[in-house]
């Protein structure tokens, strides 16, 4: 199939659909600045976050309600404007750049003031990059750069587990589940969920099998560096990863669904005149 301009708009629609689900989740759980009204932050040894902190923006967010409202409003507005710009084919470069920059800032700050990890925001800092393109050929190359980045996330996570030896530790998954749900298990051991987690904790080899399957799934993303033939299977693997992570670990990776556009459209080829990005 040939890559055409319609695919760029379809990807933009998918992106905004995923973003709205994500935003609703943040809103529902009180994880926006306006609902959180933070009174403190926990810094991390992250150079980018600390470069932003040089401006003391974190104190402004803590002190002034108006700044918090502005941050939430711009966080929501930029992706919406970006998608409109993609459809209208105007200002998409400016808006893509602004969205990447502002979402990076927002994600780093909100994660330092709440319980969410910056990693789960990573799609919103990277996916807008592909809408920087004005031409179909530019879209093609940026789409494939993002696709490689997405593959790298999973492949490197698998490599990390080999490097640290976690994949060779039979107790790993039971230990992770205990650490993740200790308070829940001590408070509500009699619930269906509590019993399920306890069953997995006590059946070390069953939970290790799940961990090993996850590592194999992560490493399988490496095949994508060499061929696009298996991308549809990687989409299925990712959806299973998302589902199991939510059920067993309570971590919400739905934001990463936006990346799937890269795997879906990777089968499309470019032909005809190659224009600048």
């Amino acid at each position, binding site marked *: 199939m040939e890559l055409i301009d319609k695919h760029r708009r379809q990807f933009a629609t998918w992106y905004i659909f995923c973003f709205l689900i994500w935003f609703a989740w943040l809103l529902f*759980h*009180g*994880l926006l600045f306006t609902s959180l009204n933070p*009174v*403190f*932050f*926990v*810094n*991390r*040894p*992250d*150079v*980018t976050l*600390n470069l932003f902190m*040089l401006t*003391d923006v*974190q*104190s402004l967010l803590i002190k002034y309600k108006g700044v918090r409202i502005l941050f939430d409003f711009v966080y929501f507005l930029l992706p919406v404007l970006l998608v409109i710009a993609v459809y209208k084919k105007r200002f998409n470069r400016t808006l893509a750049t602004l969205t990447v920059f502002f979402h*990076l800032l927002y*994600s*780093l700050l909100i994660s330092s003031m709440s*319980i*969410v990890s*910056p990693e789960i*925001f990573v799609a919103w*800092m990277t996916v807008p990059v592909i809408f920087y393109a004005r031409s179909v*050929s530019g879209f093609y*190359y940026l789409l*494939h*750069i993002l696709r*490689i*980045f997405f593959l*790298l996330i999973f492949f*490197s*996570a698998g490599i990390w*587990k080999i490097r*640290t030896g976690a994949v060779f*530790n039979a*107790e*790993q998954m*039971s*230990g992770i589940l*205990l*650490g993740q749900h*200790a*308070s*829940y*298990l*001590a*408070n*509500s051991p009699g619930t269906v*969920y*509590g019993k399920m987690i*306890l069953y997995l904790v*006590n059946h070390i080899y069953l939970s290790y099998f799940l961990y090993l399957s996850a590592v194999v799934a992560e490493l399988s993303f490496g095949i994508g560096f060499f061929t696009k033939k298996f991308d549809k299977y990687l989409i299925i693997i990712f959806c299973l990863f998302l589902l199991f992570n939510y059920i067993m*670990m*309570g971590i*919400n990776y739905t934001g990463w669904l936006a990346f799937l556009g890269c795997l879906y459209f990777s089968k499309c080829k470019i032909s005809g005149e190659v224009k*600048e*990005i």
Partner: protein
Amino acid sequence: MFIKDLYNYSKPAFYGFFGFLIVFIYLNYKQGIVAAPLFQFGMYSKPVSIKDTQSVYKIYLNGKLDDLSQYSFAERDILLVTPENYHKSFAINESVFQSMHRIFSAAGPNAFIKRSAYVYDENYAEFNDWYKLLLQKIAGYRVNEAVVTRSRYISDNTGLKQISAPENIFPFGTH
């Protein structure tokens, strides 16, 4: 090959992407300080054991043990982790400030680093009020009294066993 096609298509895009890959690989090899959240995805790769001691938090609202199973994962995390995070933030922020001071000094913009932006004084009264409001919002009813305890547990074949007496970690300033 994609990378070769990219080189022929756009030199800036090629060098930008290639540079990113080099930094990604280097930071994953080197570990330690993170450049941005885009570069390391460990995803539970630190080895752990079921024999590890676990911190267990319990929340008592208006004198009654709160049932955590009624909350979503995110709400549970917000309620349980926040007092500990606040308590730890002073030492962590100080330590990160020291590290960043060294890095930025070497890079140049050291003069812009204000200690007051990174490290703040404890304000337990403010935190107590704020966290109580948060509890109230998530629990969905008026909270007159809130206590959070932490104790140590270990796992045996039947479940979790308490090995230390509960210690009150909230409200601050009363223990």
